[in-house]
């Protein structure tokens, strides 16, 4: 085990964090891998923004390394692939060359195509409008259409490296405006269900789930970071709606 191998381990950890793995899982993975290669002591501290790893080798020398990471969006397939890779590494103890080769292989996997993602956003918006109580075909169709348009705009905004909070604000403002406009035109009785359906993909529900789990299972630091992120995201979304609703003369 040497510095180069530690770098490869950190690369695996980085990919897992980016794809939305739990921090304690990533810490455990680092622990397992270093132990499998003969580390006497491993101290891994992983947060969603930074990770440090100290490894004591049998001869007493110490390797320290740290790496900056950031959550780039939930990708469960990626988490799963790297989780399996860690299993393989701890079991087989391959050479550094093989590890690096396997990392490259793990990075090549299927992602859903853009049209599939847009289609799913359409389904999400429509089905949640229905879920929250809309039984009007026009309303559900409008909500779905707006959901699809929002996803296309999201994809464009991501390509332009727009700030995440700004995306949420604009997203929420645009679909609220469309919903209010549809109401003014008399297409739907109220903007409520359209907004509810579209709001679902903006609510940081997953973020809150992860934050709470981290907070109460010992990873307080990550829990706090995630909680604050969620609050900011929710606030930027609410602000988008409130600005538009105010312009349209109060919620109808």
């Amino acid at each position, binding site marked *: 085990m040497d510095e180069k191998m530690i770098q490869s381990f950190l690369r695996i950890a980085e990919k897992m964090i980016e794809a939305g793995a739990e921090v304690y899982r990533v810490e455990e993975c680092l622990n397992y891998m270093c132990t499998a290669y003969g580390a006497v002591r491993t101290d891994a501290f992983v947060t969603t923004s930074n990770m440090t790893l100290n490894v004591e080798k049998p001869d007493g020398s110490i390797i320290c390394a740290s790496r900056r990471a950031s959550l780039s969006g939930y990708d469960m397939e990626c988490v799963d692939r790297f989780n399996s890779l860690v299993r393989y590494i701890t079991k087989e103890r391959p050479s550094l060359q093989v590890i690096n080769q396997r990392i490259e292989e793990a990075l090549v996997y299927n992602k859903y195509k853009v049209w599939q993602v847009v289609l799913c956003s359409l389904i999400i918006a429509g089905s*949640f409008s229905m879920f929250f109580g809309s039984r009007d075909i026009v309303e559900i169709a409008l909500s779905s259409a707006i959901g699809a348009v929002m996803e296309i705009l999201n994809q464009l905004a991501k390509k332009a490296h727009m700030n995440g909070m700004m995306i949420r604000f604009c997203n929420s403002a645009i679909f609220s405006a469309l919903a209010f406009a549809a109401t003014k035109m008399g297409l739907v009785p109220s903007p409520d269900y359209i907004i509810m359906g579209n709001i679902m993909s903006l609510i940081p529900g997953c973020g809150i789930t992860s934050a709470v789990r981290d907070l109460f299972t010992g990873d307080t630091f990550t829990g706090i970071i995630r909680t604050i992120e969620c609050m900011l995201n929710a606030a930027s979304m609410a602000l988008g709606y409130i600005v538009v*609703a105010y312009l349209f003369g109060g919620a109808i």
Partner: protein
Amino acid sequence: MIFTLDEWIQIIAGAVGTFGFAVLFNVRGKRLLAGTIGGLLAWTVYVALGYVIDSPILRYFIVSVVTSTYSEVFARVMKTPRTTFLLICLIPLVPGSSLYYTMSYALDSSMGDFLSKALYTAELSAALALGIVVVAAISRSITAVQSKKRKKLLAEQAKENQ
């Protein structure tokens, strides 16, 4: 138990929405199916409990415990990180409508309405969170023992190799 048509529509719509989110999180194959069924299960339990328990907050807690347990079990069965199922199956429980009403009351209604709705949303989220935490705490104390054993085994094997 026989649900009304309205409740069936709600359950199915919730499951379809869950499926959509699973695709956004790049969940594939068998896991996509298991996640969608989890979302279906979550809201079915919620609706079924409605015939017995009046308080939605208590129901949220119970559903959260049931769904978290489902996620833990299926994560084991399918050898996949448990976040995968946890994040997806709980989607129908995200309090979208009460959050929306909170925002809309913030603008045009009395302070009392706004505060009570905000409190209600917070209570739902807290119940949801509590359910997740209870199950996570139990499962983590189980896995902690296993992970200690695994680490010991790995250390022994590493020594033998040298």
